[in-house]
């Protein structure tokens, strides 16, 4: 095994089981204690593909399809620097899905980079029965199979490879078949395949392939070996619920999509057309068909699925037949609709819980990361509570009695809501008796994260831990993009609501300053923006990587930062720093960790150095980082001098700049105790303004909430 060994972890106490451990990569606290990441990509590449200078190839079969071509790009870009040849294998005459990726590659890596990545790819065709001789010199080491979802064809495909390359590691991208059916491991990726980093993986123990995926910046998610795993139970399930509602009420799918989007997040039916109706409908039908065979009528695809699967027809009407009759819902309609949609989702989730298909934090995240759920299914159920969740399913069964038949409803599984695993879906805490680490696995901050962060802090306090590192989970969250603007929708109509959000979140952030002797914000990813940066700046120290991108993009939405970004960082720097902070706030342009050191960041460096510094600070070792003290009194004249700014470009930006400057001025002109109210009032007031309501948040709301 090429994984870097972790130190003994038995001394670590966790609020709940962490997710990094599900990959066999230890704990986040270990990452800091060891001062390095738990897996090294170069070592793992050598383990999977052979040593440098003698690498075997990655073969992706079905390479011209949507999944195959996407993975050719994603894995090809990551493995090219290690000299791993990438072989794309497909049938002659398969539509060329690979060349279509070139513009995207150029956008991501520049022309030279794109040419280099594609130059490392070998495209071969085969007849489906025998492998081409040209494959031999490339010595395939790892096959990612992305051929059609037909069991017999897949099995024969593996046999063909094993006959020629007995030691080859094989993973199927299947969205539905368990490994026990296929006889190979699973690496089921999520759409859009070029950029979505998530793979559901099925294997007895975390393999070097899975660890390599993690080390390459991808997000492997271990799931149990059950039909359709987690993602496609959710995605196919919500699509089925939508189409079943369509079948029973005649409400057109476009309208149902709007209401699903309003209440859950995705447009599940439209997604099929966007992906490509023919292939996507077949996959959904296939998952549902097999799930129905295993678990009963809850999953039975409706005749519409059969019709669309057979014909490949789009679900939405063509452009020249854009709908002319609306299907408005009244309150009763909407309540019944929710039973039809949430009922089956809750029931399907009860099945996944009963089967323990995944760590709850991972199960919850799948909907958000891969199926456009605004909140994970478990977070939604947690909000409903056990009684209401069960009642929702029971009402659904009245509408659709067939769903109650079969082996698919486990209400008892919903009674675990109070378990720590369910209570801490997004935030975990662990400690070694001296230092605590709080990890956040959600890339945007919302009410769930806020509540869980408070519980995590409470837990650490109860454990008598007063030194803490706040960071990401090193697994699901690869960046911290700021506040989830969906949370602002109610605040567009209610200043009170805006003040509640800004006030609550700011009070949570202040706990990092007030309730710990030492708190360290550590940003391990690509970026930390907006609300997350405001949160992190409340820590006594902020440590990032050299190239971490830090910024306040609020002005571009526009909104006024609501978690004290308009005064808290000003209280920790001098007049030079004020100018830079104003630049950040008023342009929305980010700054790198290296360039922000001294006035926003306390240390920035390469990963291992940054980890070591963060741990040194948190553990009280010698760290040589001077603490930037927080001025708790009035900070006068902060806005007397203004940086040179590029033209605002729009009245919205102009207005937002003025509002931010006013907020900085007013919040810095009072002491720390009073500043929270001042900041909150400004932020909430701006959320109610026309500029904000007509901006991106308002736009998003009108597109989301109908």
């Amino acid at each position, binding site marked *: 095994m090429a994984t870097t060994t972790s130190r003994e972890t038995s001394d670590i106490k966790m609020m709940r089981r962490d997710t990094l451990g599900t990959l066999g990569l230890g704990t986040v606290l270990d990452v800091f204690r060891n001062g390095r990441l738990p897996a090294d990509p170069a070592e793992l590449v050598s383990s999977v593909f052979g040593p440098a200078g003698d690498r075997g190839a990655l073969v992706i079969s079905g390479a011209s399809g949507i999944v195959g071509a996407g993975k050719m790009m994603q894995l090809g870009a990551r493995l090219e620097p290690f000299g791993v040849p990438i072989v794309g294998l497909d049938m002659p005459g398969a539509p060329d899905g690979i060349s279509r990726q070139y513009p995207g590659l150029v956008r991501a890596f520049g022309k030279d980079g794109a040419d280099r990545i594609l130059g490392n790819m070998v495209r071969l065709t085969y007849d489906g029965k025998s492998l081409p001789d040209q494959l031999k010199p490339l010595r395939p080491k790892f096959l990612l199979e992305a051929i059609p979802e037909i069991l017999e064809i897949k099995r024969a495909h593996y046999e063909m490879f094993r006959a020629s390359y007995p030691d080859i590691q094989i993973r199927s991208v299947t969205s539905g078949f368990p490994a026990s059916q296929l006889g190979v491991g699973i690496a089921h990726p999520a759409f859009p395949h070029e950029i979505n980093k998530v793979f559901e993986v099925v294997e007895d123990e975390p393999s070097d392939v899975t660890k390599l995926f993690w080390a390459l910046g991808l997000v492997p998610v271990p799931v149990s070996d059950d039909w359709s795993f987690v993602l496609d139970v959710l995605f196919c399930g919500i699509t089925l619920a939508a189409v079943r509602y369509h*079948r029973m009420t*005649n409400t057109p799918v476009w309208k149902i999509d709007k209401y699903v989007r309003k209440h859950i997040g995705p447009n599940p039916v439209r997604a099929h057309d966007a992906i490509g109706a023919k292939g996507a409908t077949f996959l959904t039908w296939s998952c549902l068909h097999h799930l129905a065979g295993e678990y009963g009528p809850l999953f039975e695809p409706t*005749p519409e699925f059969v019709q669309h699967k057979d014909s490949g027809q789009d679900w939405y009407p063509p452009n020249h037949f854009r*709908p*002319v009759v609306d*299907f408005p819902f009244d309150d009763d309609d909407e309540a019944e609709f929710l039973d039809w949609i949430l009922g089956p989702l809750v029931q399907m989730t009860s099945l996944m819980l009963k089967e323990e298909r995944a760590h709850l934090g991972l199960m919850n995240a799948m909907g958000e990361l891969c199926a456009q759920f605004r909140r994970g299914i478990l977070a939604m159920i947690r909000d409903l509570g056990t009684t209401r969740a069960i009642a929702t399913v029971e009402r659904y069964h009245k509408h659709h009695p067939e769903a109650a038949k079969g082996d698919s409803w486990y209400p008892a599984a919903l009674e675990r809501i109070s378990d720590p695993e369910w209570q801490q879906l997004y935030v975990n805490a662990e400690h070694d008796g001296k230092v605590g680490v709080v990890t956040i696995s959600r890339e945007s901050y919302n009410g769930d994260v806020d509540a869980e962060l408070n519980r995590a802090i409470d837990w650490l306090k109860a454990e008598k831990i007063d030194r803490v590192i706040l960071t990401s989970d090193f697994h699901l969250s690869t960046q911290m993009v700021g506040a989830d603007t969906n949370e602002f929708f109610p605040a567009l109509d209610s200043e009170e609501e805006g003040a509640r959000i800004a006030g609550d979140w700011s009070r949570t952030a202040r706990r990092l300053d007030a309730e710990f002797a030492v708190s360290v914000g550590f940003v391990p990813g690509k970026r930390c923006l907006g609300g997350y940066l405001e949160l992190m700046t409340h820590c006594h120290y902020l440590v990032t990587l050299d190239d971490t991108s830090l910024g306040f993009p609020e002005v571009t939405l526009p909104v006024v930062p609501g978690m004290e970004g308009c005064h808290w960082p000003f209280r920790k720097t001098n007049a030079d720093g004020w100018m830079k902070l104003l630049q950040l706030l008023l342009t929305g342009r980010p700054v790198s960790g290296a360039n922000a050191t001294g006035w926003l960041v306390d240390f920035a460096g390469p990963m291992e150095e940054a980890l070591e510094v963060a741990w040194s600070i948190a553990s009280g070792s010698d760290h040589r980082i001077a603490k930037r003290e927080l001025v708790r009194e009035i900070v006068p004249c902060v806005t007397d001098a203004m940086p040179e700014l590029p033209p605002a470009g729009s009245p919205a930006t102009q207005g937002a700049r003025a509002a931010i400057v006013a907020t900085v001025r007013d919040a810095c002109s009072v002491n720390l105790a009073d500043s929270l109210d001042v900041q909150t009032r400004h932020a909430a007031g701006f959320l109610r303004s026309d500029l904000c309501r007509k901006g991106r948040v308002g736009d998003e709301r009108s597109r989301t909430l109908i």
Partner: protein
Amino acid sequence: MKEIAMFPQARIPYGTWGSSFFPAWQQSALAEVNIGQFAGEAMGRILGQRRVPKSELDYLVIGSTIPWHWKFWNAPLVASCLGERVPGYHLEQACATGLQAVVAAGAEVESGGHETVGVLTFDRTSDSPVGVFPERRSYQRTVPIADVWDNFGFDPATGNAMIQTAGIAARKYKIDRREVDELTLHRTEQYFGAIESGFLDRVLFPLDVLNVQGKPLGRVDSDLGVRPLTLDGLRAMRELDTCVTGGTQTHASDGMACLLVTTEARAKELSPRPEIDIRFLAKTEIRTDPSLMPEAPAIAVQKLLQKTGLGMSDVAVVKNHNPFAVNDAVFAKVLNYDWRDMNRTGCSLVWGHPQGPTLTRILIEAFEEAVDLGGGRVLVFGCAAGDVGIAALFEVSEGGKR
């Protein structure tokens, strides 16, 4: 009395029907849409409101009279707009379309060809298309025509306009203008009474029309163009032909109406009130002398009664399509029937005439009225282009007493 049953196997399931409002020509969002598409989607909406999944349909008979874009694709296209890919065909018989389509659906069920047949009639008189038809023998190489206005203005078989047939009939039957004005006022009062009582809420569905961006274009929630009349106002109106004024004739409008025809067993499953049984009894058509269209329905009813051995006293609900008030006055004379006793919930004289769906809405209103009465026979009739009269009898079981 002999057993009367035109289609013994066919039933119209109570309460699975509905109609749009019929806004007058150019007054609503309906003037802006493809009426075939609108009708299909509206039927899906109405059936949804009635809790009938569209998947129950296995056939669709559509009826319309005015060309619409893509009408070549016929009932299958409209069915696609409804959201259910079933076969079907288009039927057209001018103003008799709305009744003829229901009878045709009954025949489909009776023949065993299909179990549940949707009837969907619609028309958009607004912006009726202007067609250019090459005519080899015409003195003009091409003749542009406005479908609605040109046809109403000229019967190629007789050379007369529709309105002239009303004048000719009024003169033949010596109809008094004063009676026609009173009759018209009464019809208007019947209509507004039906609105006030909430009766029409069981028939008509408000429908929200969207523009091409998916934004609201308008809500069709009234028979726009209908206004209360006074006797003085009616009497003051200029006579356009004998007994015909702007007030005593209908107006062009847009709309759709739909219902289902199915077997007895399926009707019980589909209807919210399975105890109500609606059967087809008889139907007939006649063609009267040239340019006497308004007397044609009366003669058709005479023939129907003769054929069935029934009298007007055997009928509980009498309702007709009356583009001219003269129609009702003639009917009263020919059948010796008090015109006050018919069209008790309104009629096309008042709420307008979109052609295809007119008699379908009339039929739906008649069934609802019969249910209010606790059942009985329903007589529905009307005139159609070419001096044609159509009449049909249905029976509503007495189980439906409200």
